[in-house]
């Protein structure tokens, strides 16, 4: 009986190890990632508008229907990235994601950047060059350091009234997303 209890206890310990291995391996083993769900993500340096979220329609990215969304992929191995443009006087936010869906950086218009989005994304090496003033950038550019090269930025623009949505989508389309200097 005691021996059986020891075997069961060993099973529990082994189970805890299995659990830890599963939790650590899951991100690498996951068959789908957010990247694969985003339409138009293959093309870098291009603003893509996401379809509006409406009742009854699939919402695989778990988006809030209140917002209009623009997304842009930037490959930092081709140079630092920037997303710039004017945005209306409503709540908006921008998040920079790594390919695995982790949020590298995020901010909102309430943090003092007012009606202009001026976001620069640099990898570690480029940040060092920037510190040595070897990369010329516009004054006022918000500097963000990314640990990875393949990133995408998502701009969320709150559209509280349906009548403004078409105009807001035009505004999002007019944003510039590119590698600095390209």
């Amino acid at each position, binding site marked *: 009986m005691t021996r059986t209890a020891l075997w069961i206890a*060993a099973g529990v310990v082994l189970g805890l190890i299995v659990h830890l291995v599963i939790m650590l391996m899951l991100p690498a083993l996951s068959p789908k990632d957010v990247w694969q769900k985003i339409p138009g993500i293959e093309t870098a340096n291009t603003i893509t508008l996401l379809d509006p979220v*409406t009742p009854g329609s699939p919402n695989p990215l778990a988006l809030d229907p209140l917002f209009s969304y623009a997304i842009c992929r930037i490959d930092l191995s081709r140079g630092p990235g920037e997303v710039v443009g004017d945005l209306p006087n409503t*709540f908006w936010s921008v998040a920079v994601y790594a390919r695995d869906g982790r*949020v590298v950086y995020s901010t909102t218009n309430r943090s003092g950047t007012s009606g202009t989005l001026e976001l620069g994304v640099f990898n570690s090496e480029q940040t060092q060059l920037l510190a040595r003033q070897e990369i010329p950038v516009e004054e006022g550019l918000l500097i963000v350091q990314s640990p990875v090269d393949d990133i995408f930025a998502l701009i969320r623009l709150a559209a509280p009234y349906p009548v403004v949505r078409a105009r807001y989508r035009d505004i999002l389309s007019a944003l510039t997303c590119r590698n600095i200097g390209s």
Partner: protein
Amino acid sequence: MRFVVNLFAMLTVALVVGFGLSYLALTSWSPVGTMKVGPWVAWPEVGAPEPDPYTNAYLARQAVLQLGRSEGIRFVAGTDSDGRALDRNCRYRIDGSTPVAAFWTLIAVDAKGVDIARPDGMAEVVGTSLPRPADGSIEVRVSKRLAPGYWYEITGEGRFSLVLTLYDASIFSGLGSQVEKLPAILNEGCA
């Protein structure tokens, strides 16, 4: 023979414990990585640049566009304040106050995350559009059938979840213990 039986028992226990704990760790039952306020559950580290391993596994499993820490925090409730699963044949009153944020939204979704609001009605409740008394409390009724007060109409059959998103609530997103109170979800009867 006894050795084989014991070995089989050990492996069975290991698999049940290993996979069982892993499943629970990725749901709202997870004691690690989640923040629970009444029936509401959030993963506060989900928008952090370097989330903990449990949140990282949750991120991989969800594979959705999470909100960054500065953008806000998303709470999900699959039960009412008494712990009973939310049912579309019942009427619920969302009653109480929300933490300080730029604004908030409330959406009813099915198990696949599809918005179950009436297609030609309000897709969601936006906090700023709500009449609020001086104490800042809110009162919203969620049901398929006409309800008094501020009514958020939903459709269909079966269980559902409520998603409450607080935008620009950066004070809270990194400091979970500071979210002291969220609105209660009260069942007002079922059809």
